């Protein structure tokens, strides 16, 4: 095959892939839980709408997914209410779950013509995690204990937590942990490895991380209620809901269908048992 033929083929492939833009694009962020939720959305909507939606999964972080949704590169993606409030919509921190929900819903709709809703049934809050043996030794159970009991914390966080308004900077105002300037910012995927290898003493993970079922680790209690609620919902472009009348009833079926225990189990299956997010999603969607 010469160069020109290859070019023609590539162009043809490009055109066929573009001709489905009247369809729907499902987005998701770049970690395991979102991979699974993205696959569930894709398979569920394929079944309900008759045509498989396009996928843009594993987008590099909340800010990027938000941008893609506003630009119309994706039509919907799963987001957490606290993240939507502070990181995407840049609204001030609110602690009451109902208030967060209505504020997010209003701001999305008036600013971006995006509908917020369909709470999936579980929350995924930040979890500050340390090694269990150390926590026992220093008798640390809550984040306030952590502030009191130790003065040389090495803290491992991802770049998003470092930068977010509900992340590190406001976190240390509530919990003035003494770090000796030792904030270790790294790729989010490496934080539990760093914690396990004694390269960090406290890491900012998520409450549905399968690592939390590991007996070596302990998630500390947020006793001052610093973190806002992070209810998992869907952010959907209004234009897509108007274009596809079957989309709304299809999404309604997903609301409330996933519990925390279920989500943590799926995350564990994906991470520890190397099940593919697609296989996990298929099994669930079939029974739905």
């Amino acid at each position, binding site marked *: 095959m010469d160069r020109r033929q290859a070019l023609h083929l590539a162009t043809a492939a490009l055109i066929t892939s573009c001709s489905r833009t009247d369809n729907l694009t499902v987005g998701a962020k770049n970690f395991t839980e979102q991979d699974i939720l993205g696959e569930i959305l894709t398979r569920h909507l394929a079944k309900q709408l008759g045509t498989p939606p396009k996928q843009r999964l594993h987008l*590099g972080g909340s*800010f*990027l997914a938000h941008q893609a949704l506003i630009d119309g590169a994706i039509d919907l993606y799963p987001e957490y209410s606290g993240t939507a409030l502070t990181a995407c919509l840049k609204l001030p921190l609110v602690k009451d779950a109902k208030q967060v929900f209505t504020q997010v819903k209003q701001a999305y709709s008036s600013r971006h013509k995006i509908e917020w809703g369909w709470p999936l049934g579980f929350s995924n809050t930040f979890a500050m995690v340390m090694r269990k043996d150390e926590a026992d030794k220093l008798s640390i159970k809550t984040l306030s204990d952590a502030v009191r009991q130790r003065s040389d914390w090495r803290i491992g966080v991802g770049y998003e937590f470092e930068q977010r308004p509900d992340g590190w900077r406001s976190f240390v105002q509530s919990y003035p942990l003494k770090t000796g300037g030792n904030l270790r*910012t790294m790729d989010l995927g*490496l934080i539990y490895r760093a914690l396990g290898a004694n390269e960090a003493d406290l890491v900012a993970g998520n409450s549905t991380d399968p690592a939390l079922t590991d007996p070596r680790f302990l998630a500390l209690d947020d006793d001052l209620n610093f973190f806002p609620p992070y209810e998992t919902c869907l952010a959907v472009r209004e234009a897509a809901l108007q274009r596809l009348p079957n989309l709304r009833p299809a999404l309604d079926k997903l609301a409330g269908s996933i519990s925390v225990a279920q989500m943590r189990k799926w995350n564990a299956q994906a991470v520890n048992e190397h099940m593919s997010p697609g296989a996990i999603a298929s099994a669930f969607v079939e029974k739905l």
Partner: protein
Amino acid sequence: MSDNILSLTLEHLLLVSLAVLAASLIAIPTAIWSQRNPRAGSLVLKLTDIIQTIPSLALFGLLLPLPLIGGIGAKLAVFVLFLYALLPILRNTLLGLDGISAEIRESAIALGMTPIQVLREIEIPLAAPSIVAGLRIATVTTIGTATVAAAIGAGGLGVLLYRGLATVETELLLAGALPAAALAILADQLFQWIEDKLSTSRRPR
């Protein structure tokens, strides 16, 4: 770890220099040895080829728990960059040595030169342009790959890239990407200059 572009650029340069320096100290002698032991040499080359195909994040994940080289910070980052820099230096040095014809070696031996003298007086000078070309590729590519050091808190310009990516702030992305590009161009020019010097000094006057 300071946040301004200048100090991050210096940090970046330090990571790159240490990695390339260490890689050349290992790769050049290894290439000389491989040239004399082709069978073992091809194994070494294959090994560096394989290393090149492992994604940096996977390498970080694998090596993080190890004692000595592991851990969060510059040490592991330099080690991983060092591993990636081995291949271009090794291959180019080998290429330069292989390009020396057997007659030249034989006549040098016939003149009574010892193997060490042959290496120092004949082989290294003749292979020098190729070796420098290898260092050039290694340096320029390492300046690019060194941005992954930020994945394990080792600093450098990748910090700005990672932050820019996490927050979708183009200014931050550019603040990391532009200095890295400038460094790469500067390094390339520097090695170009060295290569020119080498080729003019070898020309008969």
